């Protein structure tokens, strides 16, 4: 005789240690198994798009820092590329290289956070997280050297970066690139092959490629499903067409693949940084633009980059004023959440937390 069970609805969040911010999931369980799931967000909505309509083009850079606050360099870059497309200008070469270097450093930092919190969701007691933070801390130190801030950097400006790197930045970067391998090797040794990690992640919540594409998923999540699509390759911006790198892909699109793709991307980022440091030459870092910019009335631009979480784009429309008429932010974290229901239904509570961790969302970006 089958045991009669009753579904149980739980509100996971907005205050929950592993929803990566103020994210809420209304989940209906049958025992441990998920029957229904509905993502609810908006608890961190700050109206960035509306605020951007009130600020001038340079001031908006400070708003972009606060979108995905663990990868603010890449947000700056996406926005600045949008504005440059709007104005029809091109950044000086050294500025492009500096942007590429900082964006890749930020990608490493962001992926380290992603991996660390993914492991935290798996239930480690903070050890891999602290090792990831150890490396991230050094990247933040480099950022402080560059622009005086660690997290909300505001380093880039439309037309380049605000200032050239100080002289002691380059030896510090070289030192970081030397030590980085061993530090990260330790993390990899600790988690990459760990049997418990494999047991928990292999084959859990697979995302078929068809679904991934139809749900507009981008970034490492899409690449884990098997499509080698990277905007750095396909629509090169800044110095990405001058460097060589591979696009790591996996085939199953399960939790382990998403996590594995992030780890491999960190290696590729390091490769890009090394090439940039070799290729960079002295020169201008910033175009001579007025401090208050104006674009042609009716101009519009879709500035897109491959951010650490996926395709980050700023759709800017100008009416000739000093601030954009419309500034739409295509946030990868939010759109990657479209697949939540597909990924979670039928799996267990513990898997749900891990899957959310493997999507690597950031609420600052989801809610904007």
């Amino acid at each position: 005789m089958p045991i009669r069970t009753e579904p149980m609805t739980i509100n996971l969040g907005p205050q929950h240690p592993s929803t990566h911010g103020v994210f809420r999931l209304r989940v209906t369980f049958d025992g441990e198994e998920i029957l229904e799931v509905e993502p609810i967000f908006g608890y961190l909505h700050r109206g960035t798009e509306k605020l951007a309509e009130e600020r001038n083009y340079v001031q908006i850079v400070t708003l972009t820092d606060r979108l995905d606050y663990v990868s603010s360099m890449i947000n700056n870059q996406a926005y600045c590329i949008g504005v440059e497309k709007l104005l029809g200008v091109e950044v000086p070469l050294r500025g492009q290289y500096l942007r590429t270097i900082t964006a890749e450093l930020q990608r490493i930092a962001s992926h380290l956070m992603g991996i660390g919190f993914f492991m935290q969701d798996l239930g480690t007691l903070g050890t891999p997280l602290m090792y990831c933070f150890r490396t991230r801390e050094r990247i933040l130190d480099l950022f402080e050297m560059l622009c005086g801030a660690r997290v909300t950097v505001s380093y880039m400006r439309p037309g380049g970066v605000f200032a050239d790197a100080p002289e002691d930045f380059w030896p510090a970067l070289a030192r970081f690139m030397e030590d980085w391998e061993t530090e990260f090797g330790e993390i990899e040794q600790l988690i990459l092959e760990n049997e418990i990690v494999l047991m928990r992640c292999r084959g859990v919540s697979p995302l078929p490629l068809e679904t991934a594409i139809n749900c507009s998923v981008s970034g490492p999540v899409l690449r884990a499903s098997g499509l080698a699509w990277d905007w750095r390759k396909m629509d090169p911006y800044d110095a990405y067409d001058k460097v060589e790198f591979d696009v790591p892909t996996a085939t199953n699109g399960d939790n382990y693949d998403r996590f594995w793709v992030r780890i491999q991307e960190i290696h590729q980022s390091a490769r890009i940084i090394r090439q940039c440091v070799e290729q960079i030459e002295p020169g201008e870092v910033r175009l001579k633009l007025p401090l208050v910019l104006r674009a042609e009335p009716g101009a519009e631009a879709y500035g897109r980059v491959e951010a650490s979480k996926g395709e980050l784009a700023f759709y800017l429309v100008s009416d000739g004023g000093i601030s954009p008429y419309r500034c739409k932010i295509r946030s990868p974290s939010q759109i990657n959440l479209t697949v939540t229901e597909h990924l979670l239904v039928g799996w267990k509570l513990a898997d749900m937390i891990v899957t959310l961790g493997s999507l690597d969302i950031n609420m600052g970006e989801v809610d904007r």
Partner: protein
Amino acid sequence: MTVKAMAGQELAERLSQAVQESVERWDTTTVWIDPPRINDVARFLREDPSLDFQFLNSISAVDYIEYFELVYHLTSFERQHTAVVKSRVYGRESLSVPSVYDVWRGADFQEREVWDLMGIHFEGHPNMKRIVLWEGFDGHPLRKDYL
């Protein structure tokens, strides 16, 4: 190997052949669609093998006071090209356009966000309710006349 933007004229010709009276106007990069035909056009854009726009990058809405413009950024992974499709919705009150939810699931949150912040209702979306603001919020804050 990079993506290229699809010319507006080429796209407009293909569209006006396939979906009757769908194209309103076009320029070098963009095609404007008649709002009621959005869903048909979207299905054609995704399913036609030479266009093959499987990936919906984003849906944006811009408030131009007299009309709202919906902007669809599309990408084809296989053909490696992108396109911009727009649609003008005139009026301020009880606006409604067909949803593309059944063509691209990725439109789910974005359409809800457009409804929430701009007040354009999407017909055929299964879960058309506010997304970042709470239920019962008065007005649509991204409109230019919202103070």
